[in-house]
């Protein structure tokens, strides 16, 4: 058996996937080829170590309490994927209406966002009222308000020294900084090109991402 072919078949051999004749050829090659023999031993060693990892790891907190509460509420009947961590935006209390509006706004953007505007906190003008522009603007306003409401706790954690932060918060806060930059850039781009519905979608997605990260930070802060 040629060296290159033997090298390609090492993992199949390890997993018992080769036919008897091919396995015999490979065994003969391993007797003669030091490089393949070393590679095969490394593979065996890795798989042996994986098999020796402890089968059980205890979680850091008692998980039964949460299960018991959900059983009591009848939440066991909900599809598991609707109760994620981080909790999906539409499960948050900031209103199902906003989520519905967001979906409608994104779906309708191509056809109806003739003059979408970043909503800067002022009331919608007459042009916006009665059109889906208003829907998009209202959605954006709701998202911005939600982000602002969650910001104080997050900002406090971001301002804290590394060793004062809750365990596990570091990578999430780094991601928050990235998302904040994405929001700033998307806002600037959409203001410059308000006709571009793709930029509107990008901004909405960035806000969604920020809300999800804020939710994660809140959960970590609650536990610490």
């Amino acid at each position, binding site marked *: 058996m040629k060296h290159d072919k033997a090298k390609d078949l090492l*993992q*199949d051999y*390890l*997993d*018992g*996937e080769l036919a008897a004749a091919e396995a015999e050829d490979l065994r003969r090659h391993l007797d003669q080829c*030091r490089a393949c023999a*070393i590679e095969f*031993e*490394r*593979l*065996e*060693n*890795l*798989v*042996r*170590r*994986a*098999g*020796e*990892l*402890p*089968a*059980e*790891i*205890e*979680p*850091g907190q008692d*998980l*039964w309490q*949460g*299960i*018991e509460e*959900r*059983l009591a509420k009848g*939440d*066991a*009947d909900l599809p*598991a*994927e609707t*109760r*994620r*961590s981080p909790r*999906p935006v539409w499960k948050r209390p900031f209103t199902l209406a906003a989520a519905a509006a967001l979906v409608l706004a994104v779906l309708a953007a191509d056809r109806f966002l003739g003059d979408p505007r970043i909503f800067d906190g002022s009331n919608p003008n007459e042009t916006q009222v009665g059109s889906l522009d208003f829907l998009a603007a209202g959605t954006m306003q709701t998202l911005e308000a939600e982000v602002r409401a969650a910001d104080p706790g997050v900002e406090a954690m971001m301002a804290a020294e590394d060793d004062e932060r809750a*365990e*596990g918060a*570091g*990578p*999430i806060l*780094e*991601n928050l900084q*990235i*998302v904040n930059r994405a929001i700033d850039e998307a806002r600037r781009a959409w203001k410059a090109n308000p006709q571009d519905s793709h930029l509107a979608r990008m901004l909405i*997605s*960035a806000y969604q*991402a920020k809300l*999800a990260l804020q939710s*994660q930070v809140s*959960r*970590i802060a609650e536990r610490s």
Partner: protein
Amino acid sequence: MSSAALQSALPGESSEIHPEVPALVERCRRGDTKAFERIFHLHQGRIYALCLRMTADPDKAETLTQDAFLRGWRKLDSYRGEGSFGGWMRRVAVSTVLDFSRQEARQRKLFRPYEDSDPHAHAVGDAESRIDLERAVASLPAGARQAFVLHDVEGFRHREIAEMTGLAVGTIKAQLHRARKLLMDRLGDPEGRRNHETR
């Protein structure tokens, strides 16, 4: 170690056999949550370990462990007692994690992977090499990590993993092979080299 030996040494199977489980399952079928609590505590370490290694994220693993047990409670009628309850529960957990991964992939394309997080930080005190391996596994790309955890750690066969994930056997094997190569690169495996050098 031969392939047959590897397969016969599937990790943790013996720990899944608890004599009291069949009676507990029957009580659960009648809505006895105390019996379910006992079942939970008998299996939570195993299910949490699976969720943690598949997600490489302790927060998600905790939530998914809870979700998996609630899904198990909801689907208890589909467990017919033909295999161990622990094995059935592990399949429920794998399905729960995979559903989450698919949903997450759709929703969170903006996020970077949490490469800097340390999902096994609480396992301090175990052998250094085990921690190195756990960390290296956690750093793998999601698809490769899940294939490696399900095959080499949990002991599922290629075909079983393909059925659970809905992917082709060839795809699973490719992910598994990729995972092993990445792990060997990242771990260096000095032990294997040393053994050969001393021959």
